[in-house]
C-alpha cells in the first residue's frame, strides 16, 4: 500500500493500492479526492527528499504532501 498524508489538512493518511508503479501526481490527486482535500500547489516529500509529480511511486512508499505556501 502507498500511503499519502496530507499534512496540515486535518485528515488521516490515505492508503492506496498501487500494483504497478504510477506517477506521483496521479496518485496524489486520486488520494486528495478520496480524503476530500482541496488540492492547490503542493510539495511532496518521500524519505526526507522532495519528489516531483513525475516520480514513480509504488510498493510501500509513504508520501507526505504539504500545501505549497510561503512565509511572510
Amino acid at each position, binding site marked *: 500500500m502507498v500511503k499519502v498524508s496530507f499534512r496540515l489538512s486535518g485528515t488521516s493518511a490515505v492508503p492506496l493500492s498501487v500494483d504497478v508503479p504510477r506517477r506521483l501526481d496521479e496518485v496524489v490527486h486520486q488520494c486528495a479526492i478520496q480524503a476530500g482535500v*482541496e488540492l492547490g*500547489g503542493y*510539495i511532496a*516529500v518521500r524519505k526526507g527528499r*522532495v519528489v516531483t509529480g513525475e516520480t514513480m511511486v509504488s510498493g510501500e512508499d509513504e508520501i507526505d504532501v*504539504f500545501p505549497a*505556501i510561503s512565509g*511572510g
Partner: protein
Amino acid sequence: MFTMLRINTATGATVKEQANTREFLLGARTLSSRLVSREVVPACDPFGRQNKLFFTNGVLSGTTVSSSNRLSIGGKSPLTGGIKESNAGGIVGTRMAEQGLRCIALEDAPGRDAGWKIIVVGKEGVTFHDGEFLAGKGVYEKSELLVERFGAKAGCVTIGPAGEKLLLASGLACSDPHGVCSRYAGRGGLGAVMASKKVIALVVLADGDVKPEFVDSEVFKTGSRRIVKLLQENPVSSLFTKYGTAAMVDICQAVNVLPTRNFTHGWMEGAERINAQTMYDTIKERGGEGRTQHACQHPCAIQCSNVYPDKDGALLCSPIEYETMALMGSNLCLKNLDTIATMNRIANDAGVDTLDCGAAIGVAMEAGLAEFGDDQAAIGFMEEIRNLTPLGRILGSGCKTAAKVLGVRHAPHILGQALPAYEPRGTKGMAMTYLSSPMGADHTFGFTLRDEEVPTTKEGKVNLSKKFQVIGSRMDAMGMCNFVRYSVRNDMTPLLDLIKILHDVEISDVEFDDIVKETLRLEHQFNRDAGITALDHRFAETFYEEAQPETGEKIDITDEEVAEARRW
C-alpha cells in the same frame, strides 16, 4: 493627481507637491524606490542629512479592496548600505489615503543636540510636537501614550529604544487596527533612520475626509468582491487563514531547510513542539485574548495574523510569524512557543527586527556566550537589547556586526541582512534569491521554494528566482499584501481592472511587469552607486566550504550566476 507631502525635519518647513505619473499612481515600492533612487545620494551616510525616508501607500489604498493597504517605507539602509524598501500592514496607509496623500517624505536632519519631535499630519496641516516624553520608553508604552494623545484611530509610526540609539536592526512600528504599534516594517534599520532625523513618531490623524472617487462605484464593488472570492477559493490563501505563516515549520522541516543551530543544520529534533498545529492548539486551549485568525489591516479576507496568549489567556504577542519562529526558535534550538513569543514581544518593545536579532543571538550562541537550547539565556539576550547594554547594542546591530565582534565566521547574512528562515544550502532557489536581492537576504523578494522540483540543485534557479522576483515584487509594487499573489500569479487582470475602474488608467500586464522590472533595475543601480559590488552578494565562505549535514549540500552558486539573477 497624487500628492506628496515633504517635511523638512530640520527647519519644520513643509510643502505639498502633485504629480500624475505612473509611479505616483501605483505608489508603494514603485514610488518609494524611484524617489530614493532619484533623491538620495547613494554614497551618503544613512544617518546624515542627505538620506530621506519615504512613506507611500498603494494604488488601491483607502478602498474596500481586501489586503490593499500596505505601507511601504523607503530610504538608504544603515544595515545593508544600499536601498531599502520595507513594508507593513496596519492602518497608516489608509490614514494617508484619507488625508489625500500618496507619499510623506521626511527630509534633512536637525543638529545632534535637537530634541525628539512628534510630527503630526492632519486635515489642518502639519505640526511639530515635543516628543521628549516618549524617549527611552518601549514601543508598547509609546503606543499607549500616542493613543492617549491622538486617539486610537490615528495611524502612528514609532521607534523603540533601539532605534533611538541608532542600532542597525531597528525597525518602524506601525499602528494596527486596534491602535497598537505592532505592525513592523522591520528590516533594514529604517527605525534608526527616522531616529537620525530626531523624529520619534509620525502620526497621521484620523480626521481625513478624502474618499476615493470611482469612475463607476458599482463596478468597483463587483471587482472588489471578485478579489475576496479569489482569495477565499484559493486553497493556499485559505490555509493561511487557519494556520498563518506558521505552517511553514513543518514544510521546512520536511525538506531540510529549517534553520537550526545558527544555520548549521536544516532539521531540528522536536520541531513539532513549535509548529503551526501546536500553536493553533495552544491558542485555542488558552482562549482569552488569543486569536488564531486576526487581520493586520482592514479589510482583509485572509487574516493570517494571530494573537498568542500567555498561560492566563492575556495577550503575550501579536503576531508570531514563521520567520520569527525559526530565527528565534529552531535556529537557537529552542522548542518552546512561550519562549519565542516572549522574545518576540521584547523585540517588538525594543523596536528591533526579530530576524536580525534572532540570527545575532544564534551567532552569540555559536561564540559560546550561551548554550543552544537555553531558553532563559535567549530571553536574557533580548533583554540586553531592550536594556541597551553593550552586548545588547551589538546584538541589536544584526548578525554581521555580532559575528565580527564575537569572532564567528558562519554569519548568516547577505549585505548584512540576516537570512530569513530557509537554510540556503537545502534550497538553491532561495539561495539565489537571497544572493540577488538588492535589499539583502529577503525571502519575500522571490519565493521559489514551493516551485522547486529539486531544491538542492542550482540548475534552472537563476530563471526560477527571476520569475519569482517579478511575481513577488508585483504586490510590493502596488501596496498589496504579498499573500494575494497566490490568487493572481497567473493573471493580474482582477487587480489591473480595479486600477482602471478607480483611476481610469489602463495598465496592461506586460506594462505592469515592465514597471516592476524597472524598479529592480533602479534598486540595483542605486546599490552599485553606493559602492556595493558583486563580492558583497555572497554568503559567508563557510556556506561554500561546509556541507549541510541533512542534504550534503554546499553553496555552489557562482558570482556570474548571481550577476545574471541581478540583471534586468
